[in-house]
């Protein structure tokens, strides 16, 4: 953490959430844990920030949510990707790829500007 952590780019959080839900419905805490572990804690962000984002995605119809009971019989809200969410993830993934490859090309460039 600390020095090496990257600033959370705006909109990135949405992609991360959508990706985390692409395998199975999860509750908020699980989403948070998955993001932490997958990114090796590089993206430093206050964990609470996740919840307004989840609710915004729900409002926009990208995820749906249901309340249920956890293994420990706690009230838990599960989030699930909707069809719209799947489509959004796919399109954002493509955008991200294009952006990343462009950046790679730039950073790996060998020719000096004319």
């Amino acid at each position, binding site marked *: 953490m600390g020095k090496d952590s990257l600033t959370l780019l705006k909109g990135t959080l949405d992609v991360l959430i959508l990706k985390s839900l692409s395998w199975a419905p999860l509750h908020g805490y699980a989403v948070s844990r998955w993001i932490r572990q997958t990114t090796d804690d590089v993206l430093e962000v206050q964990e609470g920030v996740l919840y307004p984002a*989840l609710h915004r995605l729900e409002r926009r119809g990208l995820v749906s949510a*249901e*309340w*249920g009971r956890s293994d420990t019989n*706690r009230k838990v809200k599960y989030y699930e990707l909707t069809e719209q969410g799947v489509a959004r993830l796919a399109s954002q993934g493509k955008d991200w790829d294009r952006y990343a490859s462009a950046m790679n090309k730039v950073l790996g460039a060998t020719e000096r500007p004319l």
Partner: protein
Amino acid sequence: MNEKINKNGAPVPGNVTDEVAFHLEMRTKELIDQGMDPAEARAEARRRFGDVREVTVATQREDLTGRNSERRLEFFGEVRQDLTIGARRLIKAPGFSLLAIAILALGIGANSAIFSVLNAVVLQPLPYPEPDRLVQMWESAPERGWEYFSVSERNYVDFRDSNETFENLAAVAFSSYNMTLDGEAIRLDGRRVSLEFFSTLGIQPALGRTFTPEEDALGSESPVAILGDGLWRNRFGEDPGIIGESVVINDTAVTVVGVMPDGNFYFDDAEVFVPIRAGTNVNRSDHRLVVLGRLHAGVTVEQGEADLDAVAAQLAIDYPESNRGFDTRVSALYDSIVDEDLRQALYVLVGAVGMVLLIACANLSSLLLARATARHREIAIYAALGAGRGRIVRQMLTETTLLALVGGALGVLLAFRGMDWFRALDPGRLPRFETLAVDGTVLLFALGATLVTALLAGLLPAWQASGCDPQDALKDSGRGSSSSTRTRRARQALLAAEIALSIVLLAGAALLIRSFLQVQSIDPGLDAGAVLTLGINMPAATEEEMEALPGQYRAMLDQAESVPGVLAVATISGLPFGGGATSMDIQVEGRDHGENYPSAFWRLTSPDYFEALGIPLLKGRKFYDEEGDGRAIAIISESMANSLWPDQDPIGQRFLAWRDPERTLTVIGVVGDVRERSLEIEAMNIVYLPHLQMAGWPNMYFVVRTDGDPAAMAPSVRAAIGQAAPDRPLTDVRPLSDVLEDTLGARRFNTSLLLCFAAVALLLAAAGVYGVMAYSVAQRTSEIGIRMAMGAGASQVVRMVVKQGMAVVGIGIVVGVLAALATTRLLASMLFGVSPVDLLSLSGSVIFLAVVALAACALPAIRATRVSPTEALRDT
């Protein structure tokens, strides 16, 4: 709201709080599993989560926004949400909100009130159809000092009949009449008007008709009149049957043929209109008419003047005796009603009050900046959540607009109060002032001012707050970070601007106050205190009546003199400062003046006039009653004596009044100069003639010197004069000091307003200084604590803080002085005896403001030294 069916089919109610609690619990468990102490784990989980309350609120907000709404609906939803949240926040910070609303109400109220004056006096078009074709014309003989001179009747007839550019040219003469109504005599303000009066202005009687050409024809004697709306309402009970009835005016039965409409017409304050029958007065040198014209469509004012000049040139050839040297002046009627100086004065006031609003804006902006710093983290969270900068700016602007609207509404209420205040201030001769009102235009202006204010005051804080870096904001406490430095800088800049604007206003107000004092300190040449004035109208139609007049006046004077407390009584044909003027050309006997005949005001007086008004008799003697009739004598004013006979004794000198050899007068006395027209205008030459020599002059005033309060004496003096002339109504009964005060009306109005604005500006600026310094001191509590712990004395700390504050004030003052130097020129036409660049006014303003600012700086500084070092340090 978040109730859903759970996987087992039973509803499980849940909300954001549950969700957050679950997260914290799981996270704590995970950290304990990693080997952390439970208490420590709980704290760490919370730390990593961020502010629980803020997250909960932000999440609930997302829910509130509504699902699957269309974009536009979403927008309005967001606006409503912004409003709800904004209102809630403002209610939660009542101190801030009330202060902001008060500042706004003051700023917008003052602006709306002044705008309503501008609207009534300047912006409103004249209430006639196609008003831009309306003009007023004058005859003009600049070599004789008569740039704008009334028109003589015979000349009017020639202008009317020989011009080619006017649709109509109308003549109006002011006169007053006595009407006998149910046995009571009342004095009526009347107009003699030509037939064209109605067609020129484009007005029609509300009832009945205008005059017929026959009724207005030269030589006609058909007794007809049109009643004014006010007279008809107040005295005739709005009886439509009055048309065709006869009323008694000046002891003659007159048939009412019409009633004028209600409305704000420039000439409608008259109570009765009669046909003028222009040309009856054959003396071309007797200039008395106001002439109004309606130009043909497409004709300019200049073309109209050129056309009338051509007529005037022909008249000068045909009647050289009376018309040589005369041409004409024509100006738009609007310009002659609302003159340039007045417009300029009002625009100066509008500019000044606009500055007050700018200061209010800066003040509010500064308050909002301070508040935005406090809300730093909240905003940072929104930003981190992906709320765009635009959305955050909008949320904050919504809040400011909400404040501004409440402030603006209160401001409009203030403006309504302001109308009463303005009327009480009575700016005297301000044209169209009676139409002053908070109307639709003013309300629209107030709304516009409110929105502009909200935008001006809110944009900078909103932009700055929304631009903060979320990481930065969420991590630290907001103190000492780069954005709080930016906020401080911005507030200091705003403060300097406030100070600068205040200096300009203070300097302007100081200049006007100095002018006012200068004018007030001028010696009018008479002692107006304890003098009561009364007007009377004594028309004499027949030779018999003429001969009776001197006796009647003597009787009235004797009656008034016998009232206990009356020291001296006299008659005069025109009151000093009363606005009326009668002038004549004169020629010193045997002297060739070339073309430049001296002119003088003339006044008819009874013997005790100088005594009654305290005008010193410098040489010679006063009049006596017995000599008036037939003997050609005059008393003249000092400056007239000095200019006509600089090296000779004026007593016994002879001159031709009206340049008429048959009116050769001998000077028997010289009296002190009187500034008859107004304190600001140098004394004119005045020729006093014994009243009874020209007793036929219909409009006279009594001046009564009393030994006490002249207003209190009014009833008994009135009754005494009434005994001698029971059927003659007395008008304008009031102290002479009031008449004098009236001439100061417009000046007092301007000065009071500008002073008021400067005071508000000073108050706002002081509040601004205090606010910024209190904030800065609060931010530096720990630093101050450390300094004091290290042995810095209280006075040292105070000095440090004050120095910092006064540095900003100093910059504001420098800018303000430069701005004042550049702008006070605009006041030039409103100043008297003071140069627009007046060192005393400027330095006085600077010192005054500096002292106030110093106090506003010192207060928070002194408070800072009272903080104990331990407390201050704990706060870090």
